[in-house]
């Protein structure tokens, strides 16, 4: 989950600024690390996936005070264009993003007894409150096996405050009361089609570490 888009963007802006002033390094080199084509443990390490081509892992260490250990973000072309987020074994009453208790608008906490419609509603509120979505449409919600458990596939699209339509797919399941989910979200034009295959391969490769 892109927990704090503002920080990501700040990071991106810094990376761009750093690049232009020093002329070296490349955009985001300090903020992204390479994800190689091999089995990788994601989030808190309880899930392993294999990407079909190299992706970039968003580094979170510099903002570690806002980390949710069970959540990890990847991107191929930058967080504004495409994202894959991993939620790995999120426990009851935990949040998918860091948020202050006093914030007016809050993403609901995950509860172990949540059904798929409740989990997707939680994701929708994330997009509306934290990702600037003006309009959010559910395209489909259907049953799907994930990590060997009865889970769901959630397809959606949203118009964001930057006037861009994005489209996404989340595949998830609650196993032993913990949420496992992989979410893909990308600009609807070009970038969704460009990487949905990667997402499917990653989902198919996902294994839970016992």
């Amino acid at each position: 989950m892109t927990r704090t888009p503002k920080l990501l963007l700040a990071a991106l802006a810094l990376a761009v600024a750093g690049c232009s002033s020093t002329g070296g390094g490349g955009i985001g080199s300090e903020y992204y690390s390479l994800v190689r084509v091999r089995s990788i443990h994601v989030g808190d390490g309880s899930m392993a996936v294999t990407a079909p081509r190299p992706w970039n892992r968003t580094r979170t260490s510099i903002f570690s005070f806002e980390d949710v250990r069970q959540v990890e973000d990847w991107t191929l072309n930058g967080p504004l264009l495409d994202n894959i987020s991993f939620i790995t074994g999120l426990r009851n009453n935990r949040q998918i993003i860091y948020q202050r208790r006093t914030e007016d608008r809050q993403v609901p906490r995950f509860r172990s007894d949540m059904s798929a419609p409740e989990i997707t509603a939680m994701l929708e509120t994330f997009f509306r409150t934290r990702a600037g979505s003006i309009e959010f449409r559910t395209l489909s919600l259907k049953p799907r096996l994930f990590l060997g458990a009865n889970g769901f596939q959630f397809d959606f699209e949203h118009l964001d405050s930057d006037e861009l339509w994005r489209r996404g797919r989340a595949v998830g399941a609650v196993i032993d009361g913990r949420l496992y989910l992989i979410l893909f979200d990308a600009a609807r034009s070009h970038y969704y089609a460009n990487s949905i295959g990667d997402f499917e391969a990653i989902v198919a490769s996902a294994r839970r570490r016992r």
Partner: protein
Amino acid sequence: MCFRCAELNRRSLLIGGGVAAASLSTGVAQARIRPADMRPLIGPGFRPTDRDEIGLWQQMDRVEEEVSGSNILIKDPQLIRYLQNLIGEVGGPAAKDMRIYLARIPEFNAVMFPSGFSVIFTGLLLRMRNEAQLAGVIAHESGHFLRRHMIRMWRDMRMKSDLLSIGAMVAGVAGGAAGVNTGDITQLAQLGTLLSLFKYNRTMEAEADAMGARLLAEKNYPAIEMANTWEQLIGEADASARHRRKRRDRGRSLFATHPSPESRMIDLKISAAEVTVPGRTYDSRRARYLQAISPIRQMILDDQVKLNDPGASQYLIETLARDGWNGLLRFYEAEIWRLRNRQGDAQRAAQGYAIAVAYPDAPPDAWRWHGLSLIKAGRQAEGRVALSRYLRMQPNAADAPFIRQMIS
């Protein structure tokens, strides 16, 4: 400036380099401006003749082009015609010269631009209990135009740095910089930046209030509804803050740039009394308002409730329900509790859905959540019945495959 501009402060500060904030510190409270003293400074078909104002209008034409092309505008022709007619009603001498746009943003705001076009947010429509309240906001915005506040501010130098950034933005420079998904709904990339550029001082806000009260009463609307709008806004902000156990946020709300909301509300009450003629009949035209916004009412309720700001949403729903509960309001009341997700909220929401579906106008989603709640509570058979009802009402629902599996 607009009715609620301070929400946009941060963007303005980013773009305008903080200069705009200077206009806020006009200091002490001042005497109320009387509606009787507020005469329009322009007539029908006004066009600027001074060179600086001509230049300002030219810039604004480009801004309007930008705004009118935004994909977050709601284009429902009937609804837009209704709003256009309303500005025609309470727009005074310039009634026929003003244009209105409706942006899908779940915030309370409306903005009047120097060349006479206005942008209304859907969040504003949600919060209005009747046509008089909406007409009051529009009359207030018209007041800025009729009193020529834009050019007066411009000549006061306060707006110049901001307007320079409009030029840059229209040219796409700042637009690119602002075109980031900041995650803050009020910081809309380009439109939001545009909306954040104008700030009026307290005198101008007081003038627009007085002018608005006068325009409203002239068209037989009860001017007291302008004060009621403020009462509702104060109540909502307090309820939101109370729920999160904090004080009302003065830094990022409509309360930052304007005179204090309480004093403004009091002034509006006095002004309303002044413009009200004894024996004359005033009509808030509630039924006509509800009819006009009916195509988008569920959507704008949905946009608000899903922000999971329970204090504000609960206050809003209860305010709207003062005119009568219905299935839609009951459903969204339950939605607030479900999303709030505190101890006991699941049961509270379940009861709420059960109440909502007892109303004949309960939306299909009320049946959906009613069914899901029943199943969660172990009442499988009843849950299946409710979900079947949902699917009958909405056989092509996006989640139909999942629901069918649940009830099979």
